[in-house]
């Protein structure tokens, strides 16, 4: 299970919506299973079908995590026209099996957000719990 503050959750979804119809992406900071901060990042592919997180955004997020005594615990990206489910591209390029992978889908009128763990090519959906308390 992954938990996320409602403000962080809304920031994540809004950052994806702002980039629509292009794929958006960002970095999840927190501790263990709790996201405490969302850092939207530039998709340097500038594409509606693929994304690459700006490496410099990863650098700054890592520094921020160290400063906050947190860690990068996952990443998110949007699927503009497909389901909130990891694509073969997502699975083949998983950078860290300990991270959470959050998908924001705009296939339907209401954004759909789902979280996954991906280990050795195996995709496991995990509940995403949005909390009402504010952390950022």
């Amino acid at each position, binding site marked *: 299970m992954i938990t996320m503050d409602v403000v962080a959750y809304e920031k994540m979804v809004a950052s994806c919506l702002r980039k629509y119809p292009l794929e958006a992406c960002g970095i999840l900071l927190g501790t263990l299973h709790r996201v405490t901060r969302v850092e939207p990042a530039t998709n340097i592919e500038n594409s509606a*079908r*693929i994304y690459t*997180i700006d*490496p410099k955004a*990863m*650098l700054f997020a890592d*520094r921020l995590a*160290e400063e906050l005594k947190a860690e990068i615990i996952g990443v998110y990206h949007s699927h503009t026209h497909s389901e909130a489910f990891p694509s073969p*591209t997502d699975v083949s390029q998983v950078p*860290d099996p300990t991270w959470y992978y959050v998908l924001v889908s705009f296939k339907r009128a209401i954004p759909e957000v789902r979280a996954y763990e991906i280990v050795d090519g195996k995709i496991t959906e995990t509940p995403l719990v949005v909390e009402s308390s504010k952390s950022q």
Partner: protein
Amino acid sequence: MAHVRLPTVLRPSAGGNSSLEVNGESIREILEAISSKYPQFVSQVLTEDGELHKFVNVYLNDDDVRYLEKLETKVGTDDRISILPAVAGGME
């Protein structure tokens, strides 16, 4: 000694450390110094040809070493090195 920050994915190959203080005059020497203590580390960051894996980005302070002198980039004692995974994917 340079301060080397490690991503979570590489920590199991580096004694579980999130950062290390390492002696070395270049990025290559720094990576070799870590690998001499933690032999599993080298294959996580370097190819068999001794080059950086494409899915790893290494920063010297604010600069990607691929745009400097790559592994031969000089490192000073107060420099900060960040090793980070490249993150990509998409619906294709």
